């Protein structure tokens, strides 16, 4: 079974994003960038499926700038077999990314697309579900456990109120939630090996996909600041302060 894993290069999760003074966006100059954490979880799951003998090939794909090659190399070092970069300097909306991924699915014919539930830059939580809809495939979003067997994936999902298990026929789209696994660190030998694995670069334009933006970013602003309050000495002080504040 071939597994396609879309991965996104985003601001590192430890870095606090800063809004640009001209309100056009977030300042990403000289900021540490990494693979989106949910995409790491998706790669890890694909690698585990391969280790179990369920997956035969893992193809990582990213839609983004030249530097996204580094993100793909990370996926290769974790255990993906090959990688595809759809190169563009445009910042694409989830629907456009989903259309690009649909075109790649058309070329690669995977039986499973394993991706992150959310990219921590735009916080959209939309691309996987959109890809499933465009392909008319079933989806299992927010997965915390995936078992592939007999042409189906049995997926446990994090839902409002607890956990739900569903069966989806393959091919399907599965999006990873935090509890699916704990991604491995790539070892030095694997990082070296990853440099020799195939990484194919395609220009976005060559796919013939309509990626025009549907939204215009009017401005990006800072949220209202919350200032630190006071330190109280005892639990009794705390209670009297809360009573004064009218919340008890």
């Amino acid at each position: 079974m071939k597994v396609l894993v879309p991965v996104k290069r985003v601001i590192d999760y430890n870095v606090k994003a800063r809004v640009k003074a001209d309100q056009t966006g977030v300042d990403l100059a000289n900021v540490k960038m990494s693979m989106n954490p949910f995409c790491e979880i998706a790669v890890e799951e694909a690698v585990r499926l391969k280790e179990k003998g369920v997956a035969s090939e893992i193809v990582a794909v990213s839609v983004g700038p030249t530097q996204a090659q580094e993100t793909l190399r990370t996926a290769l070092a974790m255990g993906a077999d090959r990688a595809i970069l759809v190169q563009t300097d445009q910042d694409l909306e989830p629907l456009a990314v989903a259309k690009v991924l649909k075109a790649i699915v058309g070329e690669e014919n995977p039986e499973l697309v394993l991706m992150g539930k959310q990219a921590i830059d735009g916080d959209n939580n939309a691309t996987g579900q959109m890809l499933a809809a465009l392909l008319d495939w079933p989806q299992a979003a927010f997965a915390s456990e995936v078992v592939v067997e007999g042409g189906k994936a049995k997926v446990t999902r994090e839902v409002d109120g607890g956990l739900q298990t569903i069966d989806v026929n393959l091919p399907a789209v599965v999006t990873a939630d935090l509890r699916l696994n704990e991604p491995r660190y790539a070892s030095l030998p694997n990082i070296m090996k990853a440099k020799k694995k195939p990484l194919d670069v395609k220009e976005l334009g060559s796919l013939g996909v309509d990626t025009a933006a549907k939204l215009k970013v009017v401005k990006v602003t800072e949220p209202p600041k919350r200032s630190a309050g006071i330190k109280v000495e005892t639990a009794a002080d705390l209670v009297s302060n809360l009573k004064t504040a009218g919340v008890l």
Partner: protein
Amino acid sequence: MAVLVIADHDNATLKDNTHKVVTAAQAIGGDVDILVAGTNTAAIAAEAAKIGGVRKVLTAESAELGQGLAEAFQDLVVGLAGGYDAILTPATTQGKNFSPRVAAKLDVAQISDVIEVVSPDTFVRPIYAGNALETVQSSDAKKVLTVRPTAFKAAAEGGSAKVESVSAPAAPAKTHFVDQKIVKSARPDLGAAKIVVSGGRAMGSAEEFQKVIEPLADKLGAAVGASRAAVDAGYAPNDYQVGQTGKVVAPELYIAIGISGAIQHLAGMKDSKVIVAINKDPDAPIFQVADFGLVADYKTAVPELMGALG
């Protein structure tokens, strides 16, 4: 103009999130209809019909809708979309599950987690864990939005909308429900509670979490939340996670106990009215957003707090 609001419910009762999304719909303007899809819809629709300013309530009933299968919701909502200029869904796990499919089928953007309606085509949403707010203007003829309920006041009751049933779509052929484990709790919903008490990694075990956090929550009539670290370690169920990638809460009072205050956690609670932090590390980042900070070991501070509450 007509706006469709997808109701939030658990196949038993209507959730207040619905009232809040109705407020967002009214800010867009035009007629507002509510769709109740699932099982037991007659009773839920009767509650929805009481929300003020609603034109009508539509019901669709099937097992698959009751199970929340995304494919079933997609087919139903896309089928109804012709009559609407905007489709608004609460940004719950369930809303996030199907709404992007609807947007993709309609070939429009989904605007996720809307916190403000600026005008019928312009919306504000948080990005980067709430460290930036993005104002976007949509060029799509139909708007598909998920709405963050905590950012809107609940629409008042006092309506008497008519209820109409619409036919449910065929069962999805390629997705099947197996089972579910829903955590039953007598406490208020995290999203709707006036007070939330959350525990973090400091609890060290599920037993300790139950021993420390739950009695305090019971005493305050509060909902219980948790940090990701506490959920990952199995101290609390996944549904308790507050944060960028969990639940967003904005209660009157949020009490964080043994939680450091990582940006991902702050993203889910920093709009609370009053924030209290109990942490033994005076430099914990949670103190930067806390109105009242108590630097102490929770093992002594929480029993003292219980005592002081009387």
